[in-house]
């Protein structure tokens, strides 16, 4: 067993960077977490779905008469009932190489004409109990005409492949390329003394959050107001997409709450048809409707991840310096375009192909296709694991092919260290500018932890004894906290990528923080409280973090893409800075000094060079009981900030895996 071998903290003192116990754990370890499925509303009804058993089939008829007569059935709706309702939208527009917009076929709430993947929803059955809903769903009779299907992205784009959407020729959603002009890359490649070629599949994965997706939607007719409880990573985003794009509801009449969320890994940041459909149904029946996916449904419906077929070539000179990289990838989008599906294989993948290396010429070409499979979207890493897999496999394979050491090969090609302050950021060949990096250092550290020389000796000995040991390296970079909004917008994002942090200091000096980030396991209630307590010099116990509620929090973009601390955390810090600035004015008044002469540290406002000070709590009280108070200053101590970062952040690192192959049956053991 080992612990983290760190060499320093992000801040020198205080709570930030300290290892503290999580404040949210008590409710989870005692069984008092509140997940969406735990919520039962007065008059609750339950939904079950009739889903296509075929991947591709014409729906000839849907007979609900027998089901309607079953005990407890409240309502049944089919594709015909929601034909006039919009489908769920895609949040990122990618253009074809020729400039045309990508093709966005409708993703209806229920399908009426044909099913396009196994599990496509044909009807929703609402009943008094879960049991009755499931029983009645089984009694709905659907007549299908099964059609041929295609499940592979490459095959889908070939002529004669069955079409997923009649109006999308060759099943092509878009094609796209990035980097240096292909002629330049080809030329550099032609001069390479060694070219490593790798054709591989980055397979399809199922995110598998252990909490299945769950929604509970209700409608208050008196106030014409909807409330949706949803197991989401991004409550405000869901409200925006569902109200403005799907159902056409006034946004202020829709309250979206994300209670405790049992993991997401990307799969819960998308707007799913069931969220909008339940919200549409609740008004129709005038009662709350709840649905929780069964695991089998999760497998068939929660957006999957990855599914790339790639051919990549990396050219090297005699010395092992990379001279060019060329890659062609076929991307499987599944049957419909999920919320962020289009940006994952493009702007989150192609833009990372510089890796940690000085590769002078890079070109990535992507073809994205519809198939008769579950939609594919961001899953933990989203595009970046695909990029790092492409690069790091090529580098290790090259080491074998050129008979070089894989670590040595990397050291030869690393971008030299730069801190982004004294040295500029690093401009890649694939659009991004890295913020700061010291890539040699992480590999050196990894080699130390492994004791590389020792391992190579052990490997030789093992091989002599008929045992196979192996070491694999991966020095990777990622781009987190997509930003700024203007750049993302220019690349096709249909949403802003800022975050909101609202800090409300209560009269007694206690602090409530409202963040647009939404924890689904990350521990924001602890991390953000740490940041706030550190910055204000108060106890973490005096800080409360509120998240996941569209009415408490002004706005928010949610939690995904490793953005919470960098974007959400910074938004909170911005508000704290405003609070300190105003606090200085109040303190200056109390201390009869000039605000410019007041410092804030360790929870105290102090007049520079004196021992005259006033604690944070007194300043807070004064802000709300402004009897002795600066003229022209508003009472209260409450600030909100929208933070739109200047750039992504670029974390990087090194993974080293050591494996032993057990020869008799070839079992792998990781060490």
């Amino acid at each position, binding site marked *: 067993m080992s612990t983290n071998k760190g060499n320093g903290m992000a801040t020198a003192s205080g709570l930030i960077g300290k290892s503290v116990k999580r404040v949210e754990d008590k409710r989870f370890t005692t069984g008092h977490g509140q997940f969406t499925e735990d919520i*039962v509303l007065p008059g609750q009804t339950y939904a079950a779905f009739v889903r296509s058993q075929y991947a591709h089939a014409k729906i000839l008829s849907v007979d609900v008469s027998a089901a309607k007569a079953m005990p407890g059935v409240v309502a049944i709706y089919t594709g015909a009932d929601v034909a006039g309702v919009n489908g769920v939208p895609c949040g990122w527009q990618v253009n074809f190489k020729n400039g045309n917009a990508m093709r966005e076929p409708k993703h209806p709430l229920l399908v009426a004409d044909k099913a396009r993947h196994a599990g496509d929803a044909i009807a929703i059955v609402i009943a008094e109990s879960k049991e009755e809903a499931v029983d009645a769903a089984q009694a709905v009779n659907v007549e299908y005409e099964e059609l041929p299907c295609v499940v592979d992205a490459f095959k889908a784009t070939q002529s004669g492949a069955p079409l997923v959407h009649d109006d999308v020729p060759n099943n092509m959603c878009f094609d796209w390329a990035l980097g240096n002009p292909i002629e330049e890359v080809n030329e550099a490649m032609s001069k390479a003394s060694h070219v490593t070629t790798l054709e591989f599949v980055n397979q399809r994965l199922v995110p598998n959050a252990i909490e299945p997706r769950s929604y509970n939607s209700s409608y208050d007719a008196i106030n014409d107001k909807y409330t949706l409880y949803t197991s989401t990573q991004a409550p405000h985003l869901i409200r925006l997409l569902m109200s403005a794009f799907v159902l056409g509801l006034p946004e202020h009449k829709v309250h979206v709450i994300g209670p405790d969320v049992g993991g997401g890994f990307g799969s819960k940041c998308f707007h799913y048809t069931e969220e909008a459909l339940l919200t549409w149904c609740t008004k129709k029946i005038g009662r709350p409707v709840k649905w929780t996916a069964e695991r089998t449904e999760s497998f068939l419906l929660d957006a999957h991840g990855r599914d790339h077929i790639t051919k990549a070539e990396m050219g090297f000179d005699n010395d092992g310096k990379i001279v060019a990289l060329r890659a062609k990838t076929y991307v499987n989008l599944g049957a419909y375009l999920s919320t962020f599906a289009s940006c994952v294989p493009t702007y989150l993948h192609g833009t990372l192909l510089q890796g940690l290396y000085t590769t002078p010429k890079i070109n990535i070409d992507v073809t994205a296709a519809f198939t008769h499979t579950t939609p594919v979207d961001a899953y933990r890493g989203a595009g970046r694991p695909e990029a790092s897999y492409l690069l790091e496999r090529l580098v290790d394979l090259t080491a074998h092919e050129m008979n070089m050491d894989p670590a040595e090969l990397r050291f030869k090609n690393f971008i030299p260290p730069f801190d982004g302050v004294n040295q500029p950021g690093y401009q890649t060949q694939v659009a991004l500018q890295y913020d700061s990096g010291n890539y040699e250092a992480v590999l050196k550290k990894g080699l130390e932890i492994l004791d590389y020389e020792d391992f190579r000796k052990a490997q030789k000995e093992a091989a002599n004894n008929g045992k196979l040991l192996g070491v694999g390296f991966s020095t990777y970079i990622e781009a987190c906290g997509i930003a700024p909004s203007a750049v993302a917008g220019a690349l096709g994002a249909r949403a802003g990528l800022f975050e909101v942090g609202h800090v409300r200091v209560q009269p007694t000096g206690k602090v409530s923080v409202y963040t647009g980030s939404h924890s689904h396991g990350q521990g924001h209630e602890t991390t953000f409280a740490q940041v706030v307590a550190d910055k204000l010099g108060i106890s973490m116990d005096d800080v409360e973090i509120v998240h996941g509620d569209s009415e408490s929090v002004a706005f928010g973009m949610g939690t995904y893409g490793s953005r919470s601390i960098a974007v959400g955390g910074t938004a909170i810090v911005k508000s704290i800075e405003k609070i300190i600035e105003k606090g200085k004015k109040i303190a200056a008044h109390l201390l009869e000094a000039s605000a410019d002469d007041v410092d804030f540290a360790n929870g105290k406002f102090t007049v520079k060079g004196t021992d005259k000070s006033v604690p944070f709590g007194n300043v807070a009280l004064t802000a709300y009981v402004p009897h002795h108070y600066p003229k022209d200053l508003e009472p209260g101590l409450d600030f909100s900030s929208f933070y739109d970062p200047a750039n992504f952040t670029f974390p990087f690192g090194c993974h080293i895996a050591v494996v032993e192959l057990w020869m008799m049956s070839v079992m792998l053991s990781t060490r």
Partner: protein
Amino acid sequence: MSTKITVTVNGAKHIDKVEPRLLLVYYLRDVLKLTGTHVGCDTSSCGACTILVDGKATKSCTMLAVQADKCKITTIEGMATNGELHPLQEGFNQCHGLQCGFCTPGMIMTAADLLKNNKKPSEEQIRAALEGNFCRCTGYHNIVKAVQYAADKMSAPRARKTKKEAAL
């Protein structure tokens, strides 16, 4: 057709009429409103629904409520006594053995069964004991540590066992 059952859950006796097809996990969650026991799958694989039935770790999604007639059940809600957390509950907090918290109740209940039978489990034994409980967040590293923490605490000579722990 409903059947009368009598069960003792976390020390409290309950008499209810239930449909035979009602799974024990739904009886706990929907009838008794003990929502700490979770459902994560439909194939008896994930272990999120683990409780103790007559002291034995049990997947409550794979037992009918009628089968639990006359049984003594402990759920996650019954692990803390008089506001004092069970060493496992403390261990999961101390060792950061949870992230989203959804699998945590099942993990704790399975670990409770292990520690009842094995006071000083090795890392390997802990991992083997938890093979029926999925966690997608932690990579299990800190869960193993949490169970080790609890084992150490429970076997410490000065540790005073509460009545409930002793009974588990």
